[in-house]
């Protein structure tokens, strides 16, 4: 169905179901319970999950398939966001022109940067992409302030031209049908679940992009990209020109990043220059590797993990901890709080660092492959062989 084999179809359906049911799945704890701190089902974070999912899926088309490690993909995310906000400033708050423009502009940037950077391979390529992205960031933060609004980030002012604006428009919307920020809250007993229009738009796009990436992975083009990664010498002596293949992959992943950037700006009409900093480029690299580079679902998982830690763990403070461990005797409570404190709140970086090390040490190949290994171990030897067969015939699972 849809040009997918059974296995891929199953995976697509699972992803789609997870995306659609996310408001329930991410809010498993009653609103007033102590565990509610771990709920992630509020619009902003759900949007970030899927948007960074798109970013990572796209990055994986380049890195996972061709092995070219770009350290400058955040530049495309940034120009995507700037394009969308500029459309808000020039036309109106309809998100569609902005998103289309952001994909196009990111694609053009990717053609230029990719054409130059792909003249080199390995770490030389990584550093070239890093250099381009850092130049973009540094200039956006300072000299290009008239275009990017520098430090503050590009935002919409009432004094902007907005040639197509109607007087009811105050926030991003889709053809006037629905505002991105509109949210329904469903109260079910002690639980509450948020259904946000913007989230669903992003989620649908994410599923579409995920579908597209499966198709690319399973296409002759995808096979050629894996051939690039595997052996460029043989590729060339087989009469294939590796460069346009890698450039195409680079541009596609740049456009994914542009789409993600456009969506970020559509959900929240502000584009900060930090989106282009090397740390942002590094983040998507980490997401992809953490989840499992070259696997279809890994990057999405990795993106979810990192964003979860950033947004949930950073908000747990000492007071919350005392609430949680209040049942313990005083001395013990303080001891436990003292220990845990280092890993939450301002210590969330530490948790992330430890997580990176744990995953790469104990689950080589990332969360997804590690998970598969564990499953295989549990299932025993026979299915072990089966599993190996399937991964071998479709190593880019």
């Amino acid at each position: 169905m849809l040009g997918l084999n059974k296995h891929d179809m199953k995976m697509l359906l699972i992803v789609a179901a997870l995306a659609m049911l996310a408001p329930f799945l991410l809010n498993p704890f009653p609103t007033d319970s102590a565990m509610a701190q771990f709920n992630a089902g509020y619009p902003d974070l759900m949007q970030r999950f899927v948007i960074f999912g798109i970013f990572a899926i796209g990055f994986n088309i380049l890195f996972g398939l061709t092995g070219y490690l770009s350290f400058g993909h955040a530049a495309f995310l940034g120009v995507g966001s700037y394009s969308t906000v500029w459309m808000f400033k020039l036309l109106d708050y309809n998100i569609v022109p902005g998103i289309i423009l952001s994909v196009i502009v990111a694609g053009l940037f990717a053609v230029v940067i990719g054409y130059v950077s792909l003249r080199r391979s390995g770490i030389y390529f990584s550093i070239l992409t890093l250099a381009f992205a850092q130049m973009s960031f540094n200039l956006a933060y300072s000299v290009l302030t008239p275009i990017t609004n520098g430090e503050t980030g590009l935002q919409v002012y009432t004094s902007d031209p907005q040639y197509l604006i109607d007087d009811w428009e105050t926030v991003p919307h889709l053809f006037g049908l629905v505002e991105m920020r509109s949210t329904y809250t469903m109260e079910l007993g002690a639980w509450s679940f948020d259904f946000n229009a913007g989230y669903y738009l992003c989620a649908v796009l994410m599923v579409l992009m995920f579908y597209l990436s499966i198709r690319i992975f399973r296409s002759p083009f995808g096979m050629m990209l894996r051939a690039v990664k595997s052996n460029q010498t043989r590729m060339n002596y087989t009469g294939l020109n590796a460069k346009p293949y890698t450039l195409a992959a680079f541009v596609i992943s740049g456009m994914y990043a542009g789409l993600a950037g456009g969506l970020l700006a559509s959900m929240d009409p502000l584009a900060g220059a930090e989106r282009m900093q090397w740390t942002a480029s590094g983040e998507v690299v980490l997401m992809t590797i953490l989840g499992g580079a070259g696997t279809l679902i890994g990057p999405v998982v990795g993106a979810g993990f990192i964003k979860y830690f950033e947004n949930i763990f950073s908000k747990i403070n000492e007071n919350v901890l005392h609430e949680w461990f209040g049942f313990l005797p005083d001395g013990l409570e303080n001891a436990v709080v003292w220990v845990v404190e280092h890993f939450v709140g301002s210590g969330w970086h530490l948790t992330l660092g430890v997580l990176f090390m744990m995953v790469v040490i104990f689950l080589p190949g990332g969360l997804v492959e590690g998970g598969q290994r564990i499953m295989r171990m549990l299932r025993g030897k026979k299915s072990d062989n089966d599993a190996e067969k399937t991964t071998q015939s479709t190593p880019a699972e």
Partner: protein
Amino acid sequence: MDAVILQILNGLDKGSAYALIALGLTLIFGTLGVVNFAHGALFMIGAFCAVSLSKILNLSFETIDETQTDFLGNPLKVKTAYIESWFGPELGASIIDWAVPLAILFSIPIMIGIGFIMERGLIKHFYKRPHADQILVTFGLAIVMQEIIKHYYGANPIPTPAPDVFKGSFDFGTLLGFDPNVIIYPYWRLVYFAFAAVIIGTVFAFLQFTTFGMVVRAGMADRETVGLLGINIDKRFTIMFGIAAAVAGLAGVMYAPINSPNYHMGMDFLVLSFVVVVVGGMGSLPGAVAAGFLLGILESFASMNEIKSLLPGIDQIIIYVVAIIILLTRPRGLMGRKGVMED
């Protein structure tokens, strides 16, 4: 003219910091084939060795001075360093004053130890793993190291001054026949430059003139063959990692008086040091040093007003522009070898 000479001095000074950090990084690349994102953190830990030593020397006991009050109006607790009470106020004070140079001795065993532990405990298991895994694990380690330092020392920079004798600046201009005050340069930065030159020279001499160095150089060129010769290259690589860590650490110790150390200073240098190493060419020690000085000098020139007024913002991007130009004209950087980290 004077401005150009000044910027050359600045460039040499910046360059020596870049070169020192890049030297260790490229040693690890070249010998072990590992992408070490924790190298910046080693530099930072070096700087905090200086901070720690100065804190240790400043360990004090408190006496209450009834004549003064603290900010809450309570009697002031006056601190006296143990060192001062043991060695007398004058000698004690000068020991404290010389904390940073003393920290060189203090840091070498610590950094080599950290290097050994890192290599044996972690990096060793990643030689055969993809570069992506190396990046993830070393980046994770860098974060952990940072957070540990942040926990003990806070996020604020900690002033770590150079000894009093090195304060102020030296008037170069008068030597060259300029008017006084035209070309002045801080003593400590001159010390840093000289120190970097010594360290770089030592590392090169060590690799050039010792059997150990010969084996390591052979290992950098062709690891498998050296392994086949029955030489225990692993042990040597551990030592190399220790040396690389020590070089980064020493660069950090001496850098502490130039800019107050803070816990994320390593990350500030990380990207830059990668650029330096790659521009120099993967696996080339002279390349890394040359690129360090080249980028340092160009960066200094780009910050001159004359140049900034022609090309606004050029100092923001000069490093990257140079990196792009060099990598496009010389495929493997200044002196890179074929086949190192090209896939």
